[in-house]
């Protein structure tokens, strides 16, 4: 997907659904594939002679290795850091494979074992704005539900009591 906002919101939805306290770790995982794989654009922009391709970071296995190396940087459970980070990363790759292309450009899900690109060819990248709108609504709905959980449960119970009496 061309926009980081969709990845960010999808990451936040997952963090809310799994009740993850450190949401930023999930979001970090959701944004890192695009951030790391495009660092070569900086060297390209400034015309640096050494062009290093960082595209392997846009693959699940390489990112898993990177997350194991990143985990000790956080004074937090290493296992949790790796799991939260890769939950976000997985959401990134799953939303990326929905993108449409003319050829077999897609996501290398099995790299470095295979260079095959995978894509479901569902939507064009610029149409990801629809995913953004839908995911934003879902995120807001989850937040509202979680904030007013007790109140909503009380209203529903009252409503069902009334309904069952009538």
């Amino acid at each position, binding site marked *: 997907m*061309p926009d*980081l*906002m969709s990845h960010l919101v999808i990451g936040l939805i997952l963090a809310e659904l799994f009740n993850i306290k450190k949401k930023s770790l999930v*979001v*970090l995982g959701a944004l890192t594939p695009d951030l790391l794989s495009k660092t070569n654009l900086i060297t390209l922009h400034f015309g640096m002679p050494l062009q290093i391709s960082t595209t*392997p970071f846009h693959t699940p296995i*390489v990112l898993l290795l990177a997350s194991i190396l990143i985990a000790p940087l956080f*004074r937090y459970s290493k296992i949790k850091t790796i799991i939260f980070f890769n939950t976000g990363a997985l959401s990134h790759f799953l939303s990326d494979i929905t993108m449409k292309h003319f050829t077999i450009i897609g996501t290398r899900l099995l790299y*470095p074992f295979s260079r095959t690109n995978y894509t479901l060819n569902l939507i064009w990248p610029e149409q990801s704005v629809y995913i953004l709108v839908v995911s934003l609504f879902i995120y807001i709905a989850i937040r509202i539900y979680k904030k007013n959980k007790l109140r909503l449960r009380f209203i529903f119970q009252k409503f069902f009591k009334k309904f069952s009496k009538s």
Partner: protein
Amino acid sequence: MKKTLKIFNCIWYFLLLILLVSILLFENVRNTYESEEGFTVKNYIEDPEKHGNFISERMVKIYNVSQDHFYFDTGNLSLKVIGSNVQKPVLGETVVYLNFRKDGVIELIDYHNYDYNYFLYGISVIALLIFLILFFKEWKLTLRGFEDA
């Protein structure tokens, strides 16, 4: 026991780092080889007979659009593409599906405009800022790494 565990940990992270660097190195060497021997626009311009008959997809900025052709920029090269009824995108790029023929003519097979794509790039910058706010709300940077804020 604790010391042995620490040493084992160091070796484990070092091996992981070596593995990661090796993968990056392998990919870069492969890319260099492909850009020298395989298909690139530069190689095609130099020898269309050798590198032609290649179909590929690329994201480009198109300009000078006319009835039967248009141009796109590859950074330092401007290329003419034969293709009719092409429309310029609105605030975005175009993904073109091209046939690089052996006679040196680049033919358009299909195209798709990424309309309003620049708008999405703008949103991405905002997303990055939101992420940084969220991150530093939960973590603070210390000499021992990121700690609970």
